């Protein structure tokens, strides 16, 4: 994160890294504050911010707990539709609508998690995928409320009032910083979870579930709770996404969107704090550049992902951290 051109000795560099790692939320938010000024255009920065949060939420279950879920699009989707329907159909205040999106995503995660946690190991990926696709079909069929195939339209939040200050959400930069406020709060909660004893149990489950259980931890409840929390972060990302686009495409809840979270987390570095943002940035930037240049950009993103799985399973950020930690 630091671009100091001064020659620094290895020791000082390591000290700097440790210092940044000690204030990871502040460092991450600082990097995200700069993002719209380095991104090609502001809308892309907003997308990186939102999908970064989505990948962060997914990373709680994949990177930190070691469970590969292919169902997180359901929580992104329910968050987006929950918030979007609250605004467009019921005319609810946008702040409350975001809360509704997060809560509904959490409830969905409770139900999906309760069923999926029963299946262990590799089964988990298939079951979460199937259950999330069930949520997709429900959203698809419930067209009176969700708009079905056409997606939800008219999620319009043009101006917001934050603490007495009127903010113009049509200005992309203002919109970005309003959303960053939410992401910043989410990241500090996320960091707090990781530092808590609960966070330590999560990592214990990842490293050796049997041993964690032998230590007296109820691993089932731990995994379920982690799944629900993870779903709520994704729900927040979904709610912000609905406000950002002012529509909700039905593809938001499709399992291929779950795959995007998997790709972003792996490209960035699973189990790292800032990696998902790096992964989301790389994925969306790549998609942006490739889709402008070639028609079949998914060929390249797919191939790059395959190469990462084969040769750089640590991801970009994970590799940098590994190299610095040597």
């Amino acid at each position, binding site marked *: 994160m630091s671009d100091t051109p001064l020659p620094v000795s290895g020791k000082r560099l390591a000290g700097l890294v440790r210092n940044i790692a000690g204030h990871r939320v502040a460092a991450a938010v600082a990097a995200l504050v700069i993002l719209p000024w380095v991104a090609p255009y502001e809308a892309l920065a907003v997308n990186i911010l939102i999908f970064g949060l989505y990948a962060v939420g997914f990373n709680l279950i994949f990177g930190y707990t070691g469970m590969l879920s292919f169902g997180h699009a359901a929580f992104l989707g329910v968050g987006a539709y929950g918030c979007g329907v609250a605004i467009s159909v019921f005319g609810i205040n946008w702040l409350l609508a975001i809360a509704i999106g997060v809560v509904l995503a959490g409830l969905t995660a409770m139900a999906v998690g309760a069923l999926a946690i029963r299946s262990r190991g590799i089964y988990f990926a298939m079951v979460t995928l199937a259950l999330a696709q*069930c949520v997709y079909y429900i959203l698809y069929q419930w067209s009176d409320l969700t708009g079905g195939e056409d997606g939800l339209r008219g999620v319009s939040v043009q101006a917001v009032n934050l603490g007495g200050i009127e903010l113009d959400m049509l200005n992309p930069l203002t919109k970005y910083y309003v959303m960053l406020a939410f992401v910043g709060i989410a990241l500090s909660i996320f960091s707090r979870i990781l530092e808590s004893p609960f966070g330590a149990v999560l990592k214990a489950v990842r490293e050796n579930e049997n041993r964690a259980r032998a230590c007296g931890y109820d691993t089932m409840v731990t995994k379920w709770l982690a799944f629900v929390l993870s779903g709520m972060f994704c729900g927040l990302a979904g709610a912000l996404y609905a406000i950002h686009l002012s529509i909700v495409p039905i593809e938001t809840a499709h399992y291929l969107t779950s795959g995007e979270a998997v790709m972003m987390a*792996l490209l960035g570095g699973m189990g790292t704090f800032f990696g998902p943002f790096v992964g989301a940035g790389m994925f969306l930037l790549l998609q942006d550049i490739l889709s402008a240049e070639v028609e079949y950009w998914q060929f390249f993103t797919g191939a790059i992902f395959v190469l990462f799985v084969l040769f750089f399973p640590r991801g970009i950020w994970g590799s940098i951290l590994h190299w610095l930690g040597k």
Partner: protein
Amino acid sequence: MNPFDIPAQLWAFQIFTGLAQGSLLVLLAVGLSLIFGMLTVVNFAHGAFYMVGAYVGVFVFMQTGSFWLGLMAVPVLVGTIGLVVERFLIRPLYGRGIDYPLLLTFGLSFVFIDLAKMLFGKVGLPFDAPEILQGAVDIGIGYFPAYRLFLIVAMVVMVGVLWLFLEKTSYGLIIRAGARDNEIVRVLGIDISRVWLVVFGLGTASAGIAGYLSAPMESVIPEMGIPVLVQAFVVTVVGGMGSLVGAVVAGLLVGVVMAVTSLIAPQLTDASMFAVMALVLLVRPQGLFGRKGLME
């Protein structure tokens, strides 16, 4: 529609339709289940292999004009692609965690989909069943589309052949032993990696056949495998991973449940298979015929 107003004949007809649809699911799930049972690899590219099978078959059909030649070419060509994928992409990942092959095949499915778009275009290919399988056959409860009947027969023949291969040949014995305990098989001097290669080829070939057989009923488009993958997963979870019997029973069950639901409440057709899965997960998390502990 009120289920009590539907005549019994329509019920029987719809159940038969479900069996035909289920036969395709069986072919798909058998391959997925076989690969998992042996290699503990969840093949996320299974839907893509299904799509490749449809394209390869239709391509051979367009060149030769023969449906049957296509049917013979598909398992060979798709299976060969499967062999290459296993040898060069999946093999380096053994021993590096169970998630990696899954992630790799997921990325690979995008590559396949876009390759199909590059080679054949984004619009679907038209394809009809051969003349001999067009029309309808009287099956006692009314006239039933001949092609759907053929699907059921084809599934029974193929699963039968696979069963004979696994149960009655010495190579099948090695495969079954490998699924039980591959280390012992290795100690006995058998090159297990070659067995895995063959199994992956077999599994992908069966996905290809399923894709080709579905081609006359669905449109052949590059994305055709995307929803199919979900169905294949549901069937495997219901039947129990690694179980041949489970794949057959669950495939037919899911096919029939979906067909019957489409008669009573068409908008719930897709949701019905998830309801079956949720029920099975609640009662038997390892699947109807799954062995406990295999997945861990």
